């Protein structure tokens, strides 16, 4: 019984730690730490308008993609 508890505790904590690590790696990879000054100010520019802006950009990109896939 004892060793089962040890194994479970170890497994759970390593899994949780691993999730955090993967999130951290993802953040590094996507360049979220590249610009330290902007990172510190990010909270100021994080409201509805910014989301709409991002959505607009996404739309533009999709439109372009569609244009490219048009059969000649």
């Amino acid at each position, binding site marked *: 019984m*004892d060793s089962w508890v040890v194994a479970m505790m170890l497994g759970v904590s390593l899994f949780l730690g691993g999730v955090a*690590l993967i999130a951290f790696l993802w953040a590094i990879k996507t360049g979220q730490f590249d610009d330290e*000054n902007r990172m510190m100010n990010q909270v100021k520019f994080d409201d509805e308008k910014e989301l709409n802006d991002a959505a607009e950009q996404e739309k533009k990109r999709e439109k372009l993609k569609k244009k490219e896939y048009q059969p000649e």
Partner: protein
Amino acid sequence: MSNVKCDHCHLVFRDSVMIHDEELRFCCNGCKGIYHLLKEEGLESFYTKMGEATLAPPTQQYEASENFDSPAFHERFVTRSNDNLWQVSLIIEGIHCAACVWLNEKALHKMPGLMEAHINYTNNKARIVWDSQVLKLSAIIDMIRSIGYNAYPYDATMQETRANKERKEYYLRMAVATFASMNMMWIAVAQYAGYFSGMTQEVKTILNIAEWILATPVLFYSGWVFYRGAYYGLRNGAISMDMLVVTGSTLAYCYSIYITVLEKGEAYFDSVSMIITFVLFGKFLEVLSRKYAADTLDVMNKYVPSEVSVLEGETIRSVSVSEVNVGDTIVIRTGERAAIDGEVIWGEGSFDESNLTGEAEAIFKRKGDMIISGTTSIDALLHYRALKDYAHSTLNNLVNLLENAMRQKPRIEQLANRLSQYFSSMILFLAIATFWAWYFWPHTFDQSLMVGISVIIIACPCALALATPVATIVGLALGAKRSILFKSAAQIETMAKATMFVLDKTGTITQGCPAVVCATYHERFDRSVLLALVSSSKHPISRGIVEYLEKTELQMDAGNGISEANEIPARGIVGRSNGAMIAGGNAFLMQDMGIVTQIKSDKSLFYYAVDGKLCATFELQDLPKEKARESIGLLKGYGLRVVMLTGDHAASAFRVADEVGIDEVYAHVTAQEKADFIAKAQGEGHVVVMAGDGVNDLLALAGADIGIAMGNGSDIAIEVSDIVLLNDSLTSLAEAYAISRRTYGLIKQNLGISLIYNAATIPLAMMGYIIPLLAAVSMSISSLLVVGNSMRSRWMYK
């Protein structure tokens, strides 16, 4: 009078000078324009986001944005990710706060066809992707300018991207290694406790499996760089430190799996991850302080004008330098740099040739004179006929020579690398010997293998890998505190081995601008008129006189009673004051005015005459920098050979050399001869340090083992060199050498510590006394000792 804030830039001015616009106040029309533009675009929330920050008022942009659409520009700066999506990297000027970033991105995103605009707040670099069918780059630039910023392109070169990518890769590997090692530690604590107080095999196996899971990504993901390094080392026939790390950790890893599966003995997973983490950390420090040579060439290309103005009939057309043919007529304006050699056919003016010849004085050119590419027009507007095409022009030759010099730059092998080769082979040999000795001294295979592996693990060069990087980082920090910028850590070691210092004269030993050393007054005259006269000119001699007058004549204002001050190139300045004709300049000017001057001097002379009567004579000289003599004395005290090379004439060279105490002087040396001199000295076995500041020193700087540039030297000299002295002083030069020597001493100490440590523990391992706990502890202590020793040196050397 009350002060009010400008509603756009938030700078405070008196109310009376502001532009009133109903309730609003603006300091200039630029601010007003931008304010209304933002209002129209619905971007006025910029001002709430901006808070209390202030902006620089917008400057008028005269440069046409059409240049950004030219094919030559696109070829250099624009990349095409696919047919329509184009990308450019810009540096945005004028970003003061996070709101500026927001505004730029927002305004750009509003443009149709603009796919992506991302601005880095820290370095103001922007990446912009746009649809080339909908939008032109010039429109994007116009938008950035219209909201009060400016943008200019930069080459996001392969080198920079690669360096960033490599650094990021290391971050990832370090994150994984650190995470795993830290978790490994608390599991290891349980295991060590169990080793002494007893633990069931079942629990031990569970702990081993957890460690196994953690050690796997460390070895194969984080440790991948060592596998790669070991492979390349082997291919070159060398057993490198990487090889030792790889064999040690891989063997320990495999052995530990074997232990875990068979459920007997002690596993070494913790040592595996610790070795990799420590050594990776050392490697990371190295990567951080590495310099990429190819970046320099990129800057060199920036220094070369990419376009010239060619006169075709009546029209002036911008043409890429490579398209200019021999015989074309080229127009050069004030401040422009010539890209092509030629002969003047129209116009006149002075040129700055100090780049190529080192001569500080401006050269006056008129019809029939030669224009050398790489020189800059100071005040000349002239037309000249190309005598050579770009490929054969002086400037291009210089670029090519520089590329060669940098490619052939000698690299002195670092002590640690050399040492680790012997060390690695020796340890591998000892481990194999130990294994066989145990096996034949009858022991089981298991036991012999374990002892053999423990030898490698205990010898694994954690401390050895940290010894050099930690010491050099300390050296870099010491230098940075004293405004000495070592561009690459590896160069500290080379600098410490220097045997010869080669110094340029103008701007390196001397201040680079003439100062008055002797003034003789022949008649009484109004000094303030003279001050006004010389203030009207930007010539170095005039500036020297201004400085002198301001220093000696206290509280004197430049009289404003002079009119028609005219600069006569290569002569001096003439003007009128209260009806009197005043003139200041050299002997030629005096001759022109009918004044006979008798004084002969090797210094530059400046005469001042009122109405044809000589009033004063100033002798000017380029003086050595402060403490130049002491610093050169210090260098000589280290037993170094100190040489002065200069393009200047012999008389002034010997005078300066005499003043600062240099015995070996070569005058009238061209840029190429300087480089040859250094190559020759290197051939004789000298490790040469070259200090210089001008373009005429470039080849020498690039060719020397260490190139040192002065902080106010030309940009390109700073790029080519390995060390920059930000405060320009010669004291820093001596100090840079002292720091290098000290750092090199520290490297040796650190290597000594780690080797002694290994020498003590390896016999223990060979006798079979090492258990995982001992391996872990000894590894940490030796690494701590090395780091601690480096820190100690840092505190001691204030």
